[in-house]
């Protein structure tokens, strides 16, 4: 069978930058091909070339047997493209139904067929009840689901998705993936996508890692990790952060990073006890250390991260001019809300939300798109007043002292909001000046923030030209320029690649653990959620869960039983079938997660059910619950309760 996409030696250069260099790849019919890579690696450029909307003189591209570079129009009836950017493809003023109809019409879809498909697609994406709602009034997740429906309505043979899930919550992401998988399985659709989520990369049939315009690794997701140079160890230490700092300095250890409550280390050391010994000599007690099979994320981190600078604790100490706060101070309450409420007209965006955050805590704020996370943060920052309820920050009342509060908080909005046309230094100076940092002191802090953001000596760079990950760190630097007691970070890592995300979280840890800064952060990355001290889940404006991540996991265990991870030949189909017998069954990465009160009795019945449907059950494992399952469980639970 000839490949559906065949690219040979494709290069594209803009003025003075080489965006894509000598890329060759081929994608077979019915494949899901994932393209991963750091920001600015050239992922979008490559998609644009393959879809024929960007011209290049170098290389050959054949799609569906046609030369796309010469005759791009010839393939356009059979392909679909979902461009990057939430809801960009949609006509904002049109309703869901009108949007789908429009895409059907321009592709000459037969009206009867259109109605059938529309019903199917809208049902699968759970958009059906909102048919009449205008696209501009949809949440980010709904927009992406609708956009996918629109690109699928004409049953393309080949679908290009450019970061379809960036900024989308885990629930909507699952729905998107279920839909894509269904189309691939049932209609033989071929999908070419880019993503910054590594668990999504694992679901692809094949993955390519693009770095600086070149494909540096390519292969099946399960084969790719074997290309890793070195071995992986998973370490559980008593003081995770201290261990991290120490192990980073150990010779033979290439990269260390936190993963949930544990640390992962890529190393070239034969005996794991050596690592344990090294740590313990520095006074760090290692509870457990074991070898771990590498994942795609590990490949990404090791190939892309290289030997970049670590974030140094000393810089923070110098910045805050001290060692942070005492333990008793950590029990102080920093943020407190009581029945906080926000209404926009008839719509209740935030409904009686109450929680407390202690000084120095990392407090995670989770919830699907449009749940009210941003609204809550904006109320706390004094961007708009609450409709009802009570709230204090550092003992100051939200209503009475909103101006004083502003002096002691830092804020990073969802949208990148430094001045793109100013230089790095100018941005830092501006915010420092606004907060009244005296000029001499400002000079000192400027240097330190440049160090924090990895921009030493680059103060003169124009902010807008920086890569996304660096920009976000700079924005964080600007948010702490006045040494706030408390910072609010609204989806700071959305769309940021894994390497840059790690570094960002290193800073959050240092701020919280060492400097005693209270951090309230929202995220759609569940691995980040697990790194928070405590978590608050909100859904449609109301709190659905609150507590430490283990507490929440225990709650899930109590309510729906223990987790079985099933390796199957077709996880998406398996979930669909098993759901009839086991209501708490969902997809996780490429595996099926199934919750049952009596696991040992369940296994034979699972095996039987799957075999009846020609699905092979490769293995059954018991494992610790990933936080994503918690998130999905609580959100679906409230959804059902409300119904």
């Amino acid at each position, binding site marked *: 069978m000839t490949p559906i996409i065949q690219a040979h030696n494709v290069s594209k250069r803009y003025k003075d930058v080489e965006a894509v260099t000598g890329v060759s790849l081929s994608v077979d019919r019915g494949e899901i091909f994932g393209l991963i890579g750091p920001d600015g690696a050239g992922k979008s450029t490559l998609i644009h070339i393959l879809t024929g909307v960007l011209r290049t003189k170098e290389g050959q591209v054949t799609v569906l047997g046609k030369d796309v570079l010469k005759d791009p129009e010839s393939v356009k009836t059979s392909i679909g493209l979902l461009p990057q950017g939430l809801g960009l493809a949609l006509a904002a003023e049109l309703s869901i139904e009108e949007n789908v109809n429009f895409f059907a*019409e321009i592709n000459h879809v037969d009206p009867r067929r259109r109605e059938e498909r529309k019903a199917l697609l809208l049902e699968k994406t759970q958009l059906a009840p909102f048919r009449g709602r205008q696209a501009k009034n949809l949440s980010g997740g709904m927009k992406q689901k609708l956009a996918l429906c629109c690109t699928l309505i004409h049953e393309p043979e080949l679908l290009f998705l450019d970061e379809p899930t960036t900024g989308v919550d885990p629930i909507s992401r699952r729905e998107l993936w279920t839909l894509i998988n269904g189309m691939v399985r049932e209609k033989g659709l071929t999908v070419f996508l880019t993503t910054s989520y590594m668990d999504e990369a694992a679901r692809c049939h094949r993955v390519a890692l693009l770095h600086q315009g070149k494909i540096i690794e390519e292969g099946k997701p399960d084969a790719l990790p074997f290309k890793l140079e070195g071995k992986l160890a998973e370490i559980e230490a008593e003081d995770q952060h201290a261990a991290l700092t120490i192990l980073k300095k150990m010779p033979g250890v290439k990269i260390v990073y936190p993963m949930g409550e544990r640390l992962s280390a890529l190393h070239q050391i034969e005996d794991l006890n050596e690592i344990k010994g090294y740590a313990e000599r520095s006074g760090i007690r290692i509870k457990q250390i074991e070898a771990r099979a590498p994942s795609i994320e590990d490949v990404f981190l090791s190939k892309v991260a290289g030997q970049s600078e670590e974030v140094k604790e000393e810089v923070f100490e110098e910045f805050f001019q001290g060692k942070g706060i005492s333990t008793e101070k950590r029990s102080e309450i920093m943020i407190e809300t009581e029945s906080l409420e926000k209404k926009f007209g008839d719509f209740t965006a935030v409904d009686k939300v109450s929680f407390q955050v202690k000084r120095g805590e990392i407090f995670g704020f989770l919830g699907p798109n449009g749940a009210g996370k941003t609204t809550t943060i904006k109320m706390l920052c004094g961007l708009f007043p609450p409709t009802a309820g009570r709230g204090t920050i550092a003992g100051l009342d939200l209503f009475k002292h909103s101006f004083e509060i502003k002096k002691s908080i830092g804020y990073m909005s969802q949208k990148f909001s430094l001045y793109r046309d100013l230089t790095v230094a100018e941005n830092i100076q501006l915010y420092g000046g606004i907060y009244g940092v005296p000029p001499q002191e400002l000079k000192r802090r400027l240097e330190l923030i440049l160090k924090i953001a990895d921009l030493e000596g680059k103060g003169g760079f124009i902010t807008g030209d920086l890569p996304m990950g660096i920009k976000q760190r700079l924005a964080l630097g600007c948010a702490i320029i006045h040494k706030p007691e408390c910072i609010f970070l609204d989806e700071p890592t959305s769309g940021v690649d894994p390497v840059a995300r790690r570094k960002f979280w290193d800073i959050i840890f240092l701020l919280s653990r060492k400097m005693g800064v209270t951090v309230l952060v929202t995220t759609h990355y569940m691995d980040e959620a697990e790194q928070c001290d405590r978590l608050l889940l909100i859904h449609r404006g109301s709190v659905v869960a609150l507590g430490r991540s283990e507490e929440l996991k225990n709650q899930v265990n109590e309510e729906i039983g223990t987790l079985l991870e099933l390796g199957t030949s077709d996880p998406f189909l398996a979930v669909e079938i098993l759901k009839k017998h086991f209501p708490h069954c969902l997809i996780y990465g490429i595996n099926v997660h199934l919750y049952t009160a009596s696991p040992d009795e369940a296994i034979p019945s699972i095996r039987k059910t799957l075999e009846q449907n020609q699905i092979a059950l490769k293995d059954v494992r018991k494992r610790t619950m990933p936080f994503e399952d918690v998130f999905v469980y609580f959100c679906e639970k409230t959804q059902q309760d409300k119904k």
Partner: protein
Amino acid sequence: MTFSVRRFKAVAQKEFLELRRNPLFFLMTVLAPLILFFLFAYGFPLDAKNIPMGVLDLDKSALSRTLLDKFEAGKAFRIKQTAGDYASLEKELSLGRIRAILAIPADFSRNLKRGLPVTLQILVDGSYPNRANLVSGYAEATIFSFRTEILRDFFIKAFGSAGAADLPIDLSVSVWYNPSFRSEDFIIPGIIAIIMMFFPPLVSAISLAKEKETGSILNMYCSSVTKTEYLLGKMTPYVLISYVNFLIFLLCALFIFEVPLRGDLPALLIVSAFYTATAVAMGLSIAVCVNTQIAAILITAMVTLTPSFLYSGFMVPVSSIGEEGRLLAYGLPATHYIDVARKIMVKGVGFAEVKLSVLALVGFCVGLYAISIAWFKKRLG
């Protein structure tokens, strides 16, 4: 690829729905043109009216009174201050409260009675030269008729009735089409042309440039819609809405401003349809060439509105514009449309008499669409 009516219709329908639901665009396409139309139509009389004039009457005789009565009789002048000294009049002039001073010398009536020439001085505020020309023109015309009477009296007195009868050349004037020189008949077809050249290109340019700027056009690039279907579909709602606007303007012109419609109504309607389509196409062709909305707005404002305003014969006849200006004038659709509209409405001609201008308009229309479609690439960058 063949033209698909279905895809074209889908694009047009989508654009229309978006347009209708976006209050800003509604304001731009319907409300703002109408407001400007009324503002211009009521405020653009080019005749001199109520020009405030100061008079320094040093003579204060019956004869000087007769002269002033002549000034006050027409609608052009309004005498603001008959008494007063020169200094205070000049202050008034410098503050712009009066536009001219008429000075009648002390020996005005005495000399005239003696049969001697006299000189009236008119001091005109020259800070707006074209306005000053108008003022002095009207003043001279008034003095001219006064002078004629004085001379006639003189000749009658000197030579008897024979003297009066024998003015050697008698001007017999006949004015065609608009005997009362109503400036509305002249200016309103022009105002329609100008406003149609302002808003439709602007909104059509923005609509395309916006999709290019945000990147939402990527979906169109990547779909089977041909560029002809896409561009024509996208422009159709603008042409239709603008044409409805035109019909409203036309009704206002006919029934509120009482501009006559002496010629062929179907001809006017057809020509106006082409003109509307051309105006929209101008915005389109600009948006095809630029990538941002700002650029589209500024270039459209510079290319369509300003030249049409100055060179289309809207206020000044094309014949009075300099050589280069005239070349530019004939390159503007508005010039041809104004010509046709005035001829059909006021002169009452039919299609046959305006075929050249009609041809030019059709040429602009087809040419602009063809160029836009040719230049538009379903590609990035």
